[in-house]
């Protein structure tokens, strides 16, 4: 899984590519923990280029969400394709994560202090 990051004001945007699954998701967990250690706790994870996610990948995102919340931050999801979004829906994780159709809408939801 390829990961790209950029900073937009106070929000760290993490763009994931290809697959978020059992074999690739540990890298993501370590990277997010590194960001938390640097006090980067407002995270937007963009899934636009992710074509596949399984329950292990979802579990990793839940672990990251818990860590971010514990650190006083926010983790939001943007632009999952319909197949990836269906995995959030069928496991009811659409109730756990804030999921947005666009980066703009997600960034706006962090509030004026982060923008």
């Amino acid at each position, binding site marked *: 899984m390829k990961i790209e990051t950029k900073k937009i004001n106070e929000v760290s945007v993490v763009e994931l590519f290809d*697959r978020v*699954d*059992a*074999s690739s998701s540990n890298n993501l967990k370590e990277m997010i923990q590194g960001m938390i250690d640097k006090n980067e706790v407002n995270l937007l994870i963009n899934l636009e280029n992710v074509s*596949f996610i*399984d*329950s*292990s990948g*979802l*579990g*990793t995102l*839940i*672990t990251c*969400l*818990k860590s971010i*919340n514990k650190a006083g931050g926010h983790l939001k999801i943007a632009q999952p394709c*319909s*197949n990836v979004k*269906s*995995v959030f829906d*069928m*496991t*009811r*994780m659409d*109730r*756990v994560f804030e999921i947005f159709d666009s980066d703009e809408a997600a960034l706006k939801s962090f509030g004026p202090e982060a923008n």
Partner: protein
Amino acid sequence: MKTKKFGLIIDSRLEDIHKVSTAVNNFCSQLPLNSEEIFGIELCITEAVVNSIKHAYGNTPGNHVEVELKVYPEYLRIKVLDKGLSMSPLQLEEVCEPFVEVESDGVGGVPTTGRGLMIIANIMDDVSYYTKDESNALIMIKNIRLDREIIT
């Protein structure tokens, strides 16, 4: 008449999961299935194989996980086979356990694991599991509508 089928054996390493996904995706792409159906089949097979690697073999490489997919006119029959520890009979019945009420428990109470079987049960039309001759088999049935001839 011969039933169209697909088979693959991988080593019990999570790093090899992509081999299964790629092969299943390629095989299913030759069938008259839409992208949503192919995604669901690939996802369920991935979940079943990961389950075998993690739980039956305890993440120990050097064991085999076998995947077999047979195409019938009205359904797909998928079998994932391992020779590791068997699943408890209750596990298949408890697939809905991770459905927690977030409002009452908060995010902290949301489990990070245990959704694989739930996903399989959600997508597949029938799921069964048996152990015979030291082999564990997860059988998944997906009803499909085939608009063209696929039996060769």
